[in-house]
C-alpha cells in the first residue's frame, strides 16, 4: 500500500543497478531457501480486474548449488516464492529492495541444452489457492450463506480453512457488515466463488493479497480526497510516453439493474389494506418463524409505514435490513418479505430492479443534455446475485459510476516503478497538456531487466457518485 522514502528515492536515480532475491517460502510463509543463480528476465502484471491480481514470469539460470530444479518439481508444489527486486542507493551502496509479492509457482519449466540452462517459472498470487488453479475447490456440496451472517467472520473462516491467518478486513460501518441476502454456492464452485459473491455485496470493495501475503478486503479509493500516490515529482523522472483511449462504447448514462426473481412458495395473492396494514391469507403459513419468506401483491393503496398481517397472526412492520426504518410500499406491486422475528425484512419486488440516470447537469454525459439517454439494462450473470432492491440500487449506482464517469483510459509507459500498485490514485500533467489530471491505476505491466519498461493503465478518476 505504501512506498518507503528510500524506494522512492532510488526510483528517481539516473543510475539504477538492479538486484534480485528469490526466496522459497513454506506454507507458513517462512523463508526456507533462496534460489541462487542469475535472473535472465522477469515480467510482472498487476491487474485489479483479475481474480488473480498479481502474476509474473521469471527466467533464470540456476547456480549449480540450488536444490530447486525443475526435475524435482514436487519440491515446488507446497512452496511459495517471494521475489524482491532491488536498486542500489548510489549514496550509501545499500540495495533498496522492493517486495514484488508472494506467489505460487505454476508449471515450472526447465530448458537444458548445450547453450541453455534456464528455468522459467510462471508465478500466480495467493488467490490461486482459492480459485481452483492450485486448490480452493469446495468439496462437491452446495453451500449456503445466510442473510445476517457476519461478512468478516465468513471471510476469516474461508481464509483459515485455506491456511491463511494474516488479513485486513476493513468494512465501513455504513456498508454491509452482514449479508443482506442468502447466498447459495453451487456444487463444483470454489472458495473464490464464495469470496466473489461476498465481494459483490459491498459493491466498491476490493479483495486481494498484498505483497506480504496479507489478504485485504477493503474499500477501493473512491472519495473526494484520496491520497495521490504518484505525482509529477516522480513522473518527471520516469515518464516516457502515453496513449489515451476514450471508450464511447462503454458510455452509458441510464442504468437499469435487474436482479434475481424470487421463488415464492408462500404467496399471499392480493392483499387488502386497512389503515397502515396489509392483510392476506396464506394457507401454507401455519406459523410465524424466522426467515419465513412470503410474496404478495399490494392493492391499489400505497402505505408509507406499512405493517403486514397473515391470517390471524400478529401484524409486523416492514423495515429495512437493519430493522430500523420503515419501507414504504407502492400500490399494485408484487413484493417479497422475509420475517425476522419482530419485523418483515424488505427484500423488494418479486424481481429487484433499480434504474439510475446521470442527472448532474454539470456532467458532459447529462442524461437530459445533448448526449441524450444512453441506456443499458444489466441482468443475468452476476446480477442474479441481487435479491433485493437495496442491492440493485447499490449496483446501479456503481455501474453508473463506472460507465458514465471513468471513460478516459490512459496507458503510461515509464521507467519501472517497482512499488506502484493498482487502485492507487495518481496525478499527472501530460506533456501535451497543462492541466493536472487524476487517474486511478487499474493494471500494471512491468518488464524487468536493464531494458525493461512499465505500462501503467489507469482510468480517469472521479469520486464515487454515492459519496
Amino acid at each position, binding site marked *: 500500500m505504501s512506498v518507503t522514502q528510500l524506494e522512492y528515492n532510488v526510483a528517481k536515480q539516473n543510475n539504477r543497478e*538492479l538486484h534480485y532475491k528469490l526466496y522459497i517460502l513454506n506454507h507458513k510463509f*517462512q523463508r*526456507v531457501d533462496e534460489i541462487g543463480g542469475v535472473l535472465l528476465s522477469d515480467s510482472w502484471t498487476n491487474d485489479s480486474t483479475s481474480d488473480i491480481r498479481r502474476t509474473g514470469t521469471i527466467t533464470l539460470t540456476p547456480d549449480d*548449488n540450488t536444490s530447486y530444479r525443475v526435475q524435482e518439481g514436487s519440491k515446488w508444489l507446497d512452496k511459495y516464492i517471494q521475489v524482491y527486486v532491488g536498486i542500489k542507493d548510489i549514496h550509501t551502496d545499500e540495495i533498496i529492495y522492493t517486495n514484488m509479492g508472494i506467489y505460487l509457482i505454476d508449471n515450472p519449466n526447465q530448458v537444458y541444452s548445450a547453450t541453455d540452462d534456464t528455468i522459467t517459472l510462471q508465478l500466480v498470487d495467493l488467490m490461486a489457492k482459492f480459485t481452483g488453479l492450485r486448490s480452493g475447490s469446495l468439496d462437491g456440496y452446495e453451500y449456503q450463506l445466510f442473510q445476517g451472517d457476519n461478512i468478516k467472520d465468513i471471510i476469516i473462516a474461508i481464509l483459515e480453512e485455506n491456511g491463511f491467518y494474516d488479513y*485486513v478486513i*476493513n468494512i465501513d460501518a455504513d456498508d454491509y457488515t452482514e449479508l443482506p441476502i442468502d447466498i447459495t454456492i453451487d456444487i463444483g464452485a470454489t472458495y473464490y466463488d464464495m469470496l466473489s459473491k461476498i465481494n459483490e455485496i459491498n459493491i466498491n470493495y476490493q479483495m486481494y493479497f498484498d505483497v506480504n501475503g496479507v489478504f485485504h478486503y477493503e474499500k477501493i479509493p473512491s472519495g473526494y480526497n484520496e491520497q495521490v500516490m504518484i505525482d509529477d515529482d516522480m513522473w518527471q523522472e520516469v*515518464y516516457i510516453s502515453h496513449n489515451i483511449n476514450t471508450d464511447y462504447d462503454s458510455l452509458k448514462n441510464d442504468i437499469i439493474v435487474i436482479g434475481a426473481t424470487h421463488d415464492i412458495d408462500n404467496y399471499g395473492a392480493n392483499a387488502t389494506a386497512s389503515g397502515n396494514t396489509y392483510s392476506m391469507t396464506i394457507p401454507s403459513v401455519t406459523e410465524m418463524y424466522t426467515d419465513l419468506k412470503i410474496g404478495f401483491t399490494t392493492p391499489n393503496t400505497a402505505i408509507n409505514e406499512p405493517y403486514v398481517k397473515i391470517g390471524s397472526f400478529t401484524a409486523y412492520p416492514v423495515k429495512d435490513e437493519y430493522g430500523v426504518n420503515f419501507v414504504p410500499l407502492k400500490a399494485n406491486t408484487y413484493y417479497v418479505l422475509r420475517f425476522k422475528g419482530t419485523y418483515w425484512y424488505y427484500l423488494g419486488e418479486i424481481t429487484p430492479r433499480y434504474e439510475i440516470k446521470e442527472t448532474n447537469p454539470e456532467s458532459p454525459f447529462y442524461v437530459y443534455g445533448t448526449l441524450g439517454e444512453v441506456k443499458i439494462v444489466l441482468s443475468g450473470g452476476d446480477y442474479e446475485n441481487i435479491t433485493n432492491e437495496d442491492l440493485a440500487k447499490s449496483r446501479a449506482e456503481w455501474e453508473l459510476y463506472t460507465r458514465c464517469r471513468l471513460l478516459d483510459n490512459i496507458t503510461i509507459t515509464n*521507467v519501472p516503478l517497482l512499488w506502484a500498485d493498482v487502485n492507487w490514485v495518481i496525478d499527472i500533467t501530460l*506533456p501535451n497538456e497543462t492541466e493536472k489530471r487524476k487517474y486511478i491505476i487499474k493494471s500494471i505491466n512491468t518488464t524487468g531487466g536493464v531494458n*525493461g519498461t512499465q505500462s501503467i493503465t489507469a482510468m480517469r478518476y472521479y469520486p464515487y457518485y454515492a459519496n
Partner: protein
Amino acid sequence: MALVTPIALSMNAFDASENQTFSFTASGGSQVVKNKLTIRRNSDDVIVYTSTLESYGFNQVVPANTLVNGTYYNFYFNTYDIEGNESADSNAVPFYCFTTPTLVFTNITTGDTIESPQYKFNLRYNQLEDELLNELHFYLYDGHGKLIKSSETIYSSENPPIDFEYTFSGFTDKETYYIEAIATTLHGLVVESNRIEFFVSYGYKNTYFLIKPYNECIEGRVRVETNIVSIDGITNDEPKYLDDSALILEQGDWLLWDDGFNFNSQQFVLTKWWKPVELGTTTVLYGDSYSDRIEISLKRYGVSNNIENIKGYIQVDGYRNGVKYFTKQSNFIDQLNNNSELISYININGSNINVILTNKNNIVNHLEFNVKSNVEFNRLTDLYLIDSDVDISIRFPYTFGGFNNFGTRDMLGYNALSAEFYNDVEPFDIVNIRLMRCIVDHFNITKNTDTQYSETKPEWDLDTILDCDFNGNIRGGNVEFTLQQVDMIKLKRRPYGTIDWITIFKKDITSIDDLNFDYKDYYLKSNIKYEYAIVPCLHGAEFNYIISDVTTKFNGIFVSDNTDTIRLIGGALYPSDNITQQIGILQPYNKQYPKVITNPNIRYRTLTVTGDVLTFDENNALDKDRGKIINERKHWEEFLTNGNPKIIKDWNGDIILGKITTPPSFSYIGNDMIIPVISFAITEQGQYDSQSDMYNNGFYSFLDK
C-alpha cells in the same frame, strides 16, 4: 482545500512492553494539525486504543504495555485540520505484538579465549509466543569492529527454541575478534545477539616440518609436501601423568609405540628426559621380532664396602636374532635415586655409539611413589647399601681396567667407554619402542646422527622420527591428533592476510601412510603470498589448522584444466581483454539525460590469448624439432577443445577461470613453418578462489562448505 485521506504506514511486529511509534503520510490538502490513532483487535475490530494528538507530525507513540504481546491488531489514522474537520479513515494496517526474542551464544562469553584457528559457535533463538524465524546471519568482526566475514543466510522451520551452530575458521593467533548474530522473525522482528569479544590463542608454531609448500616457477605451480607423523601410544593401564607433564611408569607399567615410524637400528639418536623408578631395562627398541632389539637399562655399580664409589649408569645392549651383538655403557653418575632427573643420550651411527647419562637434579624429591623400589628413596648412591641392592656383578674389565679407574670417566661421559661389539650384524628396522620403570618427561628419536648431546628439549624437524613431551599425552607424532581422531585430511589455501580458505584437496585417512601426500596446486595467482593449511577432520568436523606459507612466482602464461597444464612463454600476450556487462538506457520524456540501468550480476571478461607453440629439451632449452612441435601443437589443440573449463594465469598475477569460447587457431611465424602461433579466447565463468565456482567448473570434485 480539504484533508486528504492519510496513508498509514506498514508496521513490523514489535514488543508491546516498549514504546512504539505509529506513522502515516498525508501529502497535499489542508494542513494537518491533529491526528487520531485507532488500534483495533484484528479478529473482531474491537477498539483497544485510541489517542488524539495535536501535532503537525505524522506519527504517534503508543506507550509501553498498552497492547498485549501475542495479539494481532490493526490500526488506522484520521487527521484534522485547523477547523476541526476530520479526514476519512486511512487504510487499516495489520500488525503483531510479540515479546522480544532472545538470541544468545551458548558456548562463548565475552573475554573467552579460543585455542584454535576455528570455532563452532552455538546460538539459541527463543521467543515466548513461538514467533517463527525467517532468517539468521552470523557476523565476525576483527578487533577494530570491522566486519570481516558473515555466514550465508541460515533458515529454520522449527519452532522455538532453535539451536544453531556455525563455524568460523581462519582466526589469526593472538588476535581479538567479535562474534554477533542477527535474526529476523517471520513478522519482521529483528533481534541481535550481544556482540561477544573473544581472543584467539592457539600457540601458532612454525610448522614447516608438517607442511612445506614450494614455488615451482617453470611449472607454474606450488608443490605442497606434508610430513605428518601420527604415532599413538599404548599403555598397559590408563596413563598416569605427573602434573600433566610426565608419564609415570611404575613397576609393571609400560608404554608402547608400535605404529607410525620405522628407522634404521644403526642410525639414530635417542634422547630421554626422565626419573628412575627402579633399576633394570627402561627402554627397548625392537623390530618385527623381539629377537632383534636394543635394550637400554639403568644400572648401578658399587661394592658394599666402598660406598664412596657406588655409581649409576645406563647400558645399551644390541641383540640380533636373540644374540647380543654389542654392549655400550654410559658414563657414571653420582647420587642416583628417585630424586634424579636424568638425561640419557644414545647416538648410534653404524659402529660409532655414544651413550651419555646426566643427572640434573639435587633437589628434594617431590615424587610420591607408592611402590616398592630398589632405587632407594632419598638415598644417595654413595651411602651404604646392602649387597643385595647393588649389582656388584658389573665390571668393566675389558675397556676400563677395573674399579680403581672410575675416576678417569668424567661425569658427562665424554671419555666414556668404547662400545663392545661381539658380532657384525645387518641393521634392522625398529618399529616398536617400549618404555618402562621410569617417569618420563620427554622422549625423542631423530635420524640425524649429527645431533649432539643437549639439555634443551628438541622440537620437531624434518629428521625427527618420534617425539613425545608427555604433556598429558603419549603421542609420539608431530600432530595433536591420532589416527583414531581423523578420517579425512583437507588441504586449504588462502592469500596471506585474508580469512577465507578454500579447500583444494581432500584425502580419506584409513592408515598412517594416508597422512602424507604431495599435491601440485596450479590454480592460483603469481606474485602472491599464500598460506596453506592441513586440516584434520573427523566425521566432517574440522580440527586445528596446520599452516605454512609460500610466495608464488611463475614465469609465463599457464593454461590449466583438471587434466593438464601447458605453458606459453614465447610471444605470449593478450591481444584483447574485454569486459561485458548488461546495460540498458531508457530516455524519459522530461529528462535531458537518460536513465542508465545495469545488471551487476552479469559481468565477465573475454580474454584473447596468443603465443608461440614451443618445445623444450630436458635442460629447458628451446628445441625446434619439427616433429616435437607438431606434437605440441596437437597437444594444445586437443587440450583447448576438450570442453573442460580452463584457468589461465600469468606472470603479472592475473588469473581468469572460464571456458574456451573461441577455439584455437594456428598460424606460423616466418616462412620456415617451424613455430606455430596459437590464438584462442576464453570467457570468464567464475573465480579461482571461490569454492563453488571451482567445483562447478570441475576443478575440484567436492563442494566444501
